[in-house]
């Protein structure tokens, strides 16, 4: 790990030019909780590290006039938890981000790093997908946006083009009667990687689901949006039939692998169980019961 250049540009423009100038030999550093692990085990050997935590846009959380949120890519889990409003509006997204690692890891780990690392098991991503978050990307050719579910390309891969940096997440304004939740299955109680993770976001009106989005993690090469599960929920009162249909859709969406962290059979079953449980919590939150 010798001879690494460390840059901490104060503006996004400078970060983008430095990143482009390094021609692939640089890595972006947010919290470093993935990057430093990779450098220590020899999987990453960057010549330049570009720390983005000095860029205000990337470390800020702001609520817009219409009730939407901007979350900078490098905001740490701990900083997001301290925001007076964010957790009230998006309790599911916040709990997903706050599940990452431990207290120590929370001081650094960011939702941007979580997404850019490209793990199908990244905890915050299914919740962001359920929330309908849109990401902003900046690169040598300017800015562009895409829905968060379009961002991952496969395990460890993203749809960022060469020289592009993730700037942050825009979460839409929230209608009254909305709530979200994220649940993951891990064999331990903490310090583990999701075997399956499910995020659910609901808007309820008169006890009926008016809108729903479901994100599914660790069950396929990328985190998935599961429209079939959402469709099964919309229009229902979350009765058993609707929940079973949504759970079945969640299982059907699974394209998991057998690996050291879980089997295909197990992951497929667990996706269904977590969908039902997360939907119940999201509904309670939407209706002010939790």
């Amino acid at each position, binding site marked *: *790990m*010798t001879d690494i250049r460390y840059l901490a540009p104060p503006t996004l423009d400078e970060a983008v030019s430095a990143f482009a100038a390094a021609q692939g030999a640089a890595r972006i550093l947010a919290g470093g909780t993935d990057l430093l692990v990779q450098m220590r*085990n020899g999987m990453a050997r960057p010549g330049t590290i570009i720390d983005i935590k000095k860029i205000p846009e990337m470390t800020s959380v702001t609520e817009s006039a219409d009730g939407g949120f901007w979350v900078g890519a490098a905001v740490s889990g701990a900083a997001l938890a301290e925001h007076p409003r964010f957790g009230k509006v998006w309790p599911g997204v916040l709990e997903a981000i706050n599940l990452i690692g431990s207290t120590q890891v929370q001081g650094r780990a960011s939702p941007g790093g979580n997404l850019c690392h490209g793990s199908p098991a990244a905890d915050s991503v299914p919740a962001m997908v359920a929330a309908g978050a849109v990401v902003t990307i900046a690169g040598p050719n300017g800015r562009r946006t895409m829905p968060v579910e379009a961002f991952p390309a496969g395990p460890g891969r993203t749809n960022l083009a060469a020289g592009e940096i993730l700037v942050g997440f825009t979460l839409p304004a929230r209608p009254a009667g909305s709530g979200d939740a994220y649940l993951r*299955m891990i*064999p*331990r*109680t*903490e*310090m*583990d*990687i999701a*075997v399956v993770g499910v995020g659910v976001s609901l808007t309820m009106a008169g006890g009926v689901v008016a809108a729903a989005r479901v994100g599914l993690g660790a069950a396929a090469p990328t985190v998935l949006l599961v429209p079939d599960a959402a469709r099964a929920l919309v229009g229902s009162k979350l009765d058993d039939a609707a929940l079973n249909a949504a759970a079945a859709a969640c299982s059907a969406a699974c394209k998991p692998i057998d690996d*050291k*962290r*879980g*089997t295909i*059979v*197990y992951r497929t*079953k*667990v996706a269904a*169980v977590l969908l039902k449980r997360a939907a119940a919590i999201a509904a309670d939150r939407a209706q002010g019961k939790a």
Partner: protein
Amino acid sequence: MNAIDNKWIGKRTIRPDGADKVTGRAGYSADHSMPGMIWGRVLRSPHPHAVIRGIDTSKAEALPGVKAVVTAKDIVDFPLDKSVMLGIQDMRWMCRNIMAREKALFHGHPVAAVAAISEEVAEAACKLIEVDYEVLPHVIEIEDAIKPDAPILHDFVRHEGKPSNIATTMVNKLGDVDAGFAQADLIIERSFKTRPVHQGYIEPHACTVSHAADGKVTIWSSSQGQFMVRAMTSLLTGIPQSNIRAIPAEIGGGFGAKTIIYLEPVAVMLAKKSGRPVKMVMSRDEVFRATGPTSGSMSTVKIGVKKDGSIVAAQGTFYLQAGGLPGSPLRGPVGCSFSPYNIENVLSVGYDVVSNRSKVAAYRAPGAPLGAYATECVLDEIAEKLGMDKLELRLKNTAKPGGKTVYGATFGQITFKETVEAIKNHPHYTAPLDKNPSKGVVRGRGVASGFWFNAGGESSAQVNLTEDGNVTVTTGHPDVGGSRASIANVTAELLGIDHSRISVLIGDTSSIGFSNLTGGSRVTFASAMVVTQSTEKVIGQLKERAAKIWKIDPEAVIWDNGEARPAGPNAGQFPPLTLKELAAKANEMGGPIGAGVQLNTTGADPGFATHCVDVEVDVDLGIVRVLRYTAAQDVGRALHPSYVEGQIQGGVVQGIGWALSEEYLYNAKGQLDNASFLDYRMPVCSDVPMIEPIMLEIPNPKHPQGVRGVGEAPIVPPLAAIANAIHDALGKRFYSLPMSPPKVLEVIDAR
């Protein structure tokens, strides 16, 4: 708790090494550095099984910055036809384990080592070493290794006259099991599997070594025995013990695995060749891949009982994984599984099975937990079939003083019954359990018992008075569980002085007499014994000095509460002389005061434990959580209760991991797939409840303070206790570990 009220013994004094440890000052293995020091790295086999046809190190040696390269040629060869033992370790296997000789026997087996000016250069040089491998088919699991057509690891291993992977058979017998089973009203026979589990110490293996121009070697490393480090390094390098000084660093956990060495002899040879001090530090990946887990196992246990629950015969067959070289802890399951019980007819057989995984190392009560797992699960099933209370079944059959064990010993005073009764009368066992607290959640309660031999053995101590009237105590044992704190309590008690005036140190191999390993639950037992005798000698000297000053007979002096006093009015009227006053006069009255004792200690009677656990199962996800855990054990005398509790709690937590989540996972290529703490799932704090220890203090009559070893017995019962609790919750029995969520869900869904 014990009725005796001592001033220091039994008190929760501040541990001597505590401040250093919590402030980060304590010097562990990897903390030592020297001027001119270079770095050693190990090249490891990428194949699980391969003949090493040749090794070309020339390119590595030519790399700038490389100072030395070592292969098996530099390590003493112990020929295969003659066993040379150091304790329980056979040097034929040790020399091949630290550096592959004829063959690489597991993925990660060391094949060469390099010392260079930096870790990066050493690492780069390792990549330049060309090893000519002839790759052979490999075998990982026991069931595959014992098949007739299995790849054979060693030509010299024969079983029943044929080439085999079964390296050793151990048979322990008592009475006649066939005759015993013939009397039985009920016989239950079940087969079980456990996975290899790692000791999981936080501190990776590391050492710094200097080889001076005069041939004197100094080793700084943490281990469970600096004398073992010296002896094994001497055997493997050919350097006489008198030229080696092994300095014990603070140890960040060993749990048995640091009773052998991996790096020191290699570092010594690198230092010798390069003329520079050499430091080597393993990565976590190397620790998992190439240092000992304990054996995985395959076992069958058969127990026969009469209608009233009395056991008439028991039979156990235990296949244990040894790793690439022979030497699994057969004695554990063979000797311990049935020993809590009074059974006339026992046949206990163990097989040592080699396969292409890293060589196993000792782990807390080596082998005993996997044996107790089988026995205690079968007993649970017997109690269920007989409709008998589970603890009653155990009480009916407890081993008795004077009883003969299958491993050959005859019991003296034993206190197993007391542990069962302690659980039976405990509010945990008598509290009702809500078995179905909510939808999808079921709960269950389980019990199990366990046995461990315990050990005495060689220990040395030196107790010296400082000129200013304080005390230093030196022993030869690395302190893995708070032994310095216990020794300080004992010395303060005997001398009648304040605890803070005693400083307890661990000597290196040149400053204290030979002391055997910190292991076998022996250190507090044995070191308290030699420290007591040394301190009593010091008290004798103090009394003599007072007698000399008072010009009276030494017999007429007593030592009381830190002072010499005349024994009674007849002895004369003198104001008492304190330890400080006597120390100040020591030199003019005959010289320095101090004494040492070296003993081969005996009288370490075995340890018994009985545990009770409540679990909760999430029936949709298959997750098992431990809700409440109570562990009863006879500890003899808790010299320092915090560290006795720590031993019990630590043993239980490791047992919980073994039962529920820990396992070595190999892929089809014979490589360990989960060589990290992320995927090797040891329990974290939030996975376990507060573990309540019940310390029964029934003094061991063979020890001055009544101490009984406590470190190992607590890991023996948890595997079965948890399996039995899950059965109580689900009505389903599990016959293999770990009882991880996918496995549990599979059994639930099979309903």
